[in-house]
């Protein structure tokens, strides 16, 4: 008869706990270790290299221990060429400097080896301490050729994919993979069968599975996850404004699983990073497509590293303001006369039915949220 292994509760170490046979159990740590971790602030997040951004992300304004929080997912989105991958690389190098391992998963554009090596050597030469140590964390690089490949390593992680001591997982350019298998807009005939409706919902269901898989990896391994995506467009007919850029990967399930969301964008005065969601709370109202939240300016040094730029008032600054386009707001489609037919529906003269009260109330919410965000602008 096999003797069950004796588990010594007083000395359970996190390293042991991570090699649990079942990947469903969270690691157990003793209370003293949890307290120790709390006090070692730098173990909780990976710095992005931009001090103000770290401060904004920490939620408390603490710049020394803020950044990409371990155990959580940060989404970085923006148009092509704006600097999302650059920020991810910079964070990866910071993680390597701390001695953590970094796992980089390419989804579309391959990360050039030269680029990451140059970043590593640049940081190594600046900081003499780590140069004398000679020991860096390890940089692991894999490519996910299709969405199925990505799902295979995230939802069913191979036992040795993420070694202990990994600090950061980067998934680069996720929306290209998603759009290939589950296009964002599927136009079928108006009367959808049950089957077609199920298919249309698959995109968001898969995104939901993916985000929970990533969260699980983040928590079990104690690492920070960064997902970069490109953008797609959304029309805004109601407010009379033109199309706006939105994150390429969206949906309620995905948004719910993301802890921080950063938008990287450009303007005449330079590049900026806006914090749209932080500490699990959205800083912008959901209906406000195109809001950017709190903003940090950044600039690119000659050697390619990103530094913060002290911009006075970046996005609504004195040098650039773009007047909203003056196209007319689309009139309501239902004319008053036609509404008379549907009298049973209890509509008032503006075409709102009673059940639309929620929508009306939401409009009021938008007003409040706008005022709230406007009043919390950075000085």
């Amino acid at each position: 008869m096999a003797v069950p292994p004796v588990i010594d509760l007083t000395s359970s170490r996190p390293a042991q706990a991570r090699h649990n046979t079942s990947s469903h159990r969270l690691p157990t740590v003793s209370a003293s270790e949890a307290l120790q971790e709390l006090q070692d602030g730098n173990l909780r997040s990976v710095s992005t290299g931009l001090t103000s951004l770290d401060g904004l992300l920490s939620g408390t304004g603490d710049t020394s221990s803020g950044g990409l929080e371990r155990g959580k997912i940060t989404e970085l989105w923006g148009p092509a060429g704006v600097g999302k991958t650059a920020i991810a690389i910079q964070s990866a190098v910071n993680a390597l400097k701390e001695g953590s391992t970094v796992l980089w998963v390419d989804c579309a554009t391959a990360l050039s080896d030269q680029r990451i090596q140059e970043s590593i050597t640049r940081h190594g030469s600046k900081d003499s301490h780590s140069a004398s140590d000679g020991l860096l964390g390890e940089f692991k690089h894999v490519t996910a050729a299709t969405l199925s490949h990505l799902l295979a390593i995230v939802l069913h992680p191979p036992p040795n994919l993420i070694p202990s001591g990994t600090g950061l997982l980067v998934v680069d350019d996720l929306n290209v993979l998603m759009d290939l298998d589950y296009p964002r807009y599927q136009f079928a005939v108006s009367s959808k069968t049950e089957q077609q409706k199920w298919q249309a919902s698959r995109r968001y269901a898969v995104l939901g599975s993916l985000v929970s898989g990533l969260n699980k990896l983040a928590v079990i391994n104690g690492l920070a996850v960064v997902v970069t995506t490109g953008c797609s467009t959304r029309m805004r007919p109601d407010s009379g404004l033109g199309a706006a850029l939105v994150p390429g990967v969206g949906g309620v399930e995905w948004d719910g699983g993301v802890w921080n969301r950063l938008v990287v964008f450009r303007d005449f005065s330079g590049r900026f990073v806006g914090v749209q969601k932080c500490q699990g709370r959205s800083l912008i109202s959901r209906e406000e497509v195109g809001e950017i939240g709190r903003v940090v300016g950044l600039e690119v040094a000659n050697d390619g590293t990103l530094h913060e730029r002290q911009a006075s008032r970046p996005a609504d600054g004195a040098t650039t303001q773009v007047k909203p386009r003056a196209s007319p707001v689309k009139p309501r489609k239902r004319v008053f006369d036609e509404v008379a037919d549907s009298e049973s529906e209890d509509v008032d003269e503006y075409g709102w039915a009673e059940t639309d009260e929620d929508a009306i109330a939401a409009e009021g919410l938008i007003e409040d949220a706008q005022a709230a965000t406007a009043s919390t602008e950075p000085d």
Partner: protein
Amino acid sequence: MSDLLEVLPDFDLKAYIHLLHSLEKNDITVADLISLDPIEIARRCPLPAADVQRLVLDVVAALQEDVQTRADKRWPFNSRWPHQATISIDEVTHTACPDDEARVSTLVPDIDHALGGGLVPGHIIEVVGESAVGKTQFVLGMLLSAQLPPPRGLGKGSIYVSTEAPLNTARLKQMLISHPEYERLDPADRPSLDYVHAIGTNDLEAQEHILRYQLPVAIQRLNIGLIVLDSVAANFRAEHESRTAAGLAERATALGKLGLTLRRVAIENNAVVVVTNQVSDRFDEVRSILRSSSPANSSPSMSTANPTSTVAELRRETQSLDHQQRFFTGWGDDRDEQRNQLKNPALGLAWANQISARIVLKMESERQEYLGGNIWKDKKKARTLRVVFAPWGIVSVVEDELHGEAQGPPDGKHTELLDEEFWPTDEDEEFP
């Protein structure tokens, strides 16, 4: 499961043939298979749950193995999963793959500098500009320079896939004869037209077939390092509806597949893929770019809204497509640029998401020189080249004036490639 063969070409299906028909009928893709609960799949298409479970495990194992082998092939110094290795800084710098050094030079030092050395293998690079600005001319030069030994080239042949006009071999020959870079090489080391292969395709179906099935074979057989597709927009514009939303969605899907095919070709063969693109006009609403931020200067209609919401609206506007596209299309981020000269690269955001880098060629509008009396003389148009974005570092944008005159690179090399004589003239009917 029809995509299983695309995702895992080597997967052994013998044990699961009886499941395939039912899975196919219910439109279960490979991604669905992995992300859904096997019990649910077994319920939807009535199948034995144990078999589905086994299939899922086998597929997942095969995919994981595939990811590992690809990583090993591409990065030999990447440690295998079972082992851990910590690398010191020295190791990192010295274990660069030799292929990393090789780039395709454009043979113009300024342009090479803007590109950070040249075009990097493993990426799709788009060259976009109006008609007759010189895109084809630009890529023709690269068909030859790719044959140069590393680090200026890849030492391999090149393929030119044309959707518009056939390859202009006469011009290639002229370049070969008169370019000083080639002149000073031994005849044996010089690039040759023997290693430039061309194929033409006039419709989308043929294009897809060629790129997907024939191209990988040709690359292996003929040792190809550079592929040029000139132009990507021509066949799409001819065949895809771009006015209805459904048409756009369909086109976006087709572009995604094309992007995947080209990316695979580039990465697996460590080749450079250059794609040229056409442009369409950009129609901007009249925008008044306010110079000061005081609401008092704004129009009466805006001042009625409370000031905080005005500011919020203005901030929101920075995220509008119209504004942001100034920075990733190549037109519009210079405030001095005239509004009626702004262009958009064709095929929209769906295609922009597929490419790694974008180079834009622009042409000045008609310039005329006043010669006195009633006579105006047409001046040669100045062309500029700019790198809009590139993944091998955030390149500080360098505008390069392409002149044919003596204003060449500082070391006095006369860049014949850009000689005005070789530019298309009006008599040239081959160039659109």
